[in-house]
């Protein structure tokens, strides 16, 4: 005889669940929480970010006249150029025009060579995304490995060695790492080419051999952050009562680790990954210089130094879209694996 049959005593009443409750409604609310809420956060972020980006360009007071004519510009020539570029309109009108075009993937034209900015960025996108993507992968894989190892061996010698190593790599500036990598791996050991980029279409091997060093230089920061956070998260999760609860229910250590601890302990690391993604894109300025990659970072720096406002705005917008998109995915994921923890960006 099953126990529940015995338990269902006559006259026993059941606890009230919310009256309007329906499982379907609950599901719908959950879905809204996982998807709509992050979207509700990211839409204003996107709007703000584009606005700030545009504002930054506007307050510099730069104009195509400055870039193209320099000090030779006569007031008439400046006015003509400004009119030609639509810069004589009020700020908000310009913002609206820019934003409107932006939604159609039109980022304007470079003030320097008149090439559409979106074209210039597209030509460099693969380089930067390759480096950032591989760096992200390195960050996740090695960060997770180190973090896991440290957490599992917490307070042991190995844990302390890992922790010290992680502290050390987290303070190495990317240019130092880059220089050291070139000196050792490329020039010293002749293992890898020192610079340049080969598209993945020319073969995964050559592509990887060119991109791996910049990716490592970029990733150390992320490796350290993930390792640290994962260790803290896992050690913290192991101290939670639900682990005791799971043990008392007779679940095995492996199941406890993979189903219960990892899920909650890894949540903060995942959130951190979202926060570190902009660094992977942005940190490229230095590494690209050292590894002679013509990606985003160098393009941004040069455009900025030349006062090419549309190009700078374009790069920032594309980065923001990437970052916001990435974080959207991270947050949806986060909401799925650890819904208890409500998080913003």
């Amino acid at each position: 005889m099953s126990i529940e049959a015995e338990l269902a005593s006559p006259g026993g009443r059941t606890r009230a669940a919310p009256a309007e409750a329906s499982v379907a409604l609950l599901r719908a609310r959950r879905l809204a929480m996982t998807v709509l809420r992050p979207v509700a956060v990211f839409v204003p972020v996107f709007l703000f970010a584009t606005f700030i980006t545009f504002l930054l360009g506007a307050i510099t007071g730069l104009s195509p006249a400055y870039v193209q004519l320099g000090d030779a510009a006569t007031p008439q020539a400046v006015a003509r150029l400004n009119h030609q570029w639509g810069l004589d309109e009020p700020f908000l009108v310009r913002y609206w025009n820019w934003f409107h075009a932006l939604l159609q993937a039109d980022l304007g034209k470079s003030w320097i060579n008149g090439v559409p900015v979106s074209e210039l960025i597209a030509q460099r996108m693969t380089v930067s995304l390759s480096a950032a993507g591989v760096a992200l992968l390195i960050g996740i894989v090695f960060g997770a490995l180190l973090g896991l190892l440290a957490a599992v061996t917490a307070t042991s010698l190995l844990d302390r060695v890992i922790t010290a190593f992680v502290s050390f790599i987290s303070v190495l500036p990317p240019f130092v790492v880059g220089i050291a990598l070139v000196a050792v791996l490329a020039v010293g050991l002749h293992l890898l080419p020192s610079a340049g980029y080969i598209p993945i279409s020319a073969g995964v091997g050559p592509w990887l051999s060119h991109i791996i060093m910049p990716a490592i230089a970029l990733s150390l920061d992320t490796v350290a952050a993930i390792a640290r956070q994962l260790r803290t998260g896992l050690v913290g999760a192991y101290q939670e009562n639900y682990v005791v609860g799971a043990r008392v229910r007779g679940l095995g250590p492996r199941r406890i680790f993979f189903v219960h601890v990892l899920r909650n302990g890894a949540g903060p690391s995942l959130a951190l990954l979202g926060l570190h993604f902009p660094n992977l894109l942005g940190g490229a300025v230095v590494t690209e210089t050292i590894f002679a990659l013509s990606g985003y970072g160098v393009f941004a720096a040069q455009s900025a130094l030349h006062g090419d406002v549309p190009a700078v705005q374009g790069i920032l917008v594309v980065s923001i879209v990437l970052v916001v998109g990435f974080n959207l995915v991270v947050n949806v994921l986060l909401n799925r694996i650890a819904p208890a923890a409500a998080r913003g960006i």
Partner: protein
Amino acid sequence: GSSGTASKASSGPGGTLKWAVANAPASWDPVVDGSGFSFNYTALAYDSLTHTNEKGKAVPGLAESWKYNPDGTQVTFHLRSGLKFADGSALDAAAVKAYFQRAQTQTNSALVGEGIAPIESIDTPNRLDVVFNLSQPDYQIPLVVAQRVGQITSPKKTPAQLNASPDGAGPFKAVSVVPGSHATFVRNPNYWDAKNIRIAKVELYFNVDATTVVSGLQTGVYNFTDELSPSQVKAAKAAGLDVVLHPGFNANNLSVNRAIAPFDNPTVLEAVKYAINRDQIVKQVDFGYGTVATQPFPKGYIAYDPDHSDPYPYNPAKAKELLAKAGYPNGFSVPFVVSADTPENELLQAQLKAVGIDATLKVDTNWSTSFFAKKLPLSTYGTTGRDSPIQTLQAHFGAKGALNSSGIDGGDAYQAAIAKALATPLDSPDYQKNIQAATAAGLETTGLVFTDTVPNIFAKSTSVSDLPKIPAKITWTGVTIRGS
């Protein structure tokens, strides 16, 4: 490397030239691109009416031959037959005429001051003959159109199109150009001298940082660079690279703008000239590869005036004295706007500081617009020279000369000397004398203080055969790349 070429002549063209370049051409339209050295990059895609040889003499290019009228006021270039642009359209006299008209009239033309001013009109009596009618006798034209001024562009393309991607009748044709990043060229089978082009593909990499170029060459990312700095020669040699000292007409100067106070005071200008210690520059910055320069070309060049070998020997005491005399006993402060942070600029700044001139260094990436607009009181410039010595002189001392930072003409004596030199046929016994006189006249008044000259230093992997030693030119004719 002609023997190497000959032995390999049987095998077809091959290999990829991976060329590390510091600065991309400002424009792929030679009319707009103003920089002397980047004509070597555009020359991949464009051919010019004439070429120069190892001795600096004009030899046939697109033009098979040329002929002056007796008084030197008209020159007729006879084109090769069957010339084609990379896009397949014909390169004929009309195309040449259109090009030169563009060079003379386009608002953003960088060639206006470059020796084409005497061309009054152009006639095209037939498809192959181009007649330049000159406003004065000018025997320099065949040299002027040797590269920088004579790279003929396809008339089918708008200036904007050319700006983005070149289209000429050169040895290679552009496949893709990514501004600020890289450009890819393949051998142009329509090139008139295609049989001597042994390289199948050229990849140009722009904005390569000087500190990474040697390791890049060493690990095979590149196999050629034209921008090795003297300080890196040691590293390049240690890495087993071929370091080539290529002849050129380079000369660096401190560009003092005598149109702007206080340099409009000749005494101040003179003080600056005494303040510069050329020996120190040569020793510290050029790592032994440079020599002192006091003129816009190196010693031994046809236009070099031996009488002006050192008109203002280094004398800081005298410089201070002159400054005091000019009313600046405590010196003065002046912006020193340059295109890049180089040791030479820092050293010049220190030398000026030593006599009391506080030159505030400012690196401005948009330096060129201000410089060519003659707005900078103090700057630096390095010329790579021109094929025509008079063109070089005019560029430095002529009112429209790009390098004349003050935009003030060299004066009547200078003008007369120039006219005389122009009118002297190149094979005349007076040619050298007249040119040197023009140089002397220009140096009298100029605000440009020449400092040093360094040959072009190339580095290449040993797989790239030797380049023809044509001064100031990078020519790929006959060059092979092994192992591909």
